């Protein structure tokens, strides 16, 4: 049977989240909320009353806690997809280097230096 191969979970790559069907189901409410932030009035509504806005989208407790704590790794674990989470991060004034620094436990300066070092360093 060829179905086993299709169903097999991919080999994990350390520090990497594969956003597959399982994650897409798990993260649906959180991602749907983040998708709404394409519109300025929704970003303002979130800022005006974060609790009410999260309730409106039916976030799970895990997702609500991840958003409350502003913890990107927790948001990913709760099914968040980085493309949608980036819209939430924009509300907090974070760009992708800020997000990278937070996830890797580095200061912003250290993370920027890591990126610049890739000019000469081998991938690791």
């Amino acid at each position, binding site marked *: 049977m060829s179905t086993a191969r299709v169903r097999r979970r991919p080999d994990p*790559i350390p520090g990497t*989240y594969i956003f597959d069907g399982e994650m*897409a189901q798990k993260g*649906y409410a959180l991602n749907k909320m983040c*998708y709404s932030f394409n519109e300025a009035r929704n970003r303002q509504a979130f800022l005006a009353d974060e609790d009410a806005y999260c309730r409106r989208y039916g976030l799970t407790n895990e997702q609500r806690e991840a958003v409350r704590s502003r913890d990107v790794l927790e948001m990913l674990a709760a099914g968040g997809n980085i493309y949608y989470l980036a819209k939430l991060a924009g509300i907090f004034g974070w760009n*992708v280097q800020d997000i990278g620094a937070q996830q890797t436990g580095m200061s912003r300066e250290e993370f920027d230096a890591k990126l610049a070092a890739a*000019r000469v360093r081998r991938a690791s």
Partner: protein
Amino acid sequence: MARILGGIGTSHVPAIGAAIARGVQNEPYWQPFFAGYPAARAWLERVRPDLVVLVYNDHGLNFFLDKMPTFAVGAAPEYRNADEGWGLPTLGPYRGHAGFSWHLIESLVEDEFDITTCQEMLVDHAFTVPMSLLWPEGSVAPPVVPIAVNTVQHPLPKPSRCFALGRAVGRAIASYPDDIGVVVIGTGGLSHQLDGERAGYINREFDLLCLRALAAEPEVLTRLTILDLVRLAGTQGVELIMWLVMRGALQEKVRTVHSHYHIPVSNTAAGLLVLDNAA
């Protein structure tokens, strides 16, 4: 009959659009990146395309997880950009070419690529940034027909399938009855990873291999799986598949007009490749 003049692969990072909006192209951080583009624009001025087919990935502007097409073809008279949530100015609208779109759709489905068709389709930075780089303010861009590829939700289309889609796009262009010149653009990449503890991953050796292989032996890249690409190029480095669609549309032998590579642009390694179809 329509002719394929060549193809371009280019990065599409939002920060590039922000840099253009702020007019900081000559600042030390940006100059080495933007220095790559005059050669690409000079080639476009020489070949003067009548039409562009632009292959990109939507990052949550037009498509959400409620409906996620693997391949979607624009069939609109024009394409609008909109707020993506983090402050890029809204650009466009961009002229489409509905007549060519429907020819492309007919031809792709005949070729057994059962794509989604979109008579309305908002285009995000992965479309607008390359257009701004290649047709800056003050120049007139040709009409564009966009093809969106899913890179948001796995399973993503395999590199070999994306290359095959490019082949089918090439056949569609070749069978279009009007005598027009077409350039195919693939956007995204090169290596980068935004999410997870591995964020900031960049793989210079692999990117440089890709730039060479895309021109000379793209089959090397089509043998990779999506997971291989995630491992070698990062979770968002899979955007190489858009470049593979572009490459697939060209003939087997192409001439590299220009190749440019710079680290870092935002969290990415930025790449630019211009391939002329008249080898």
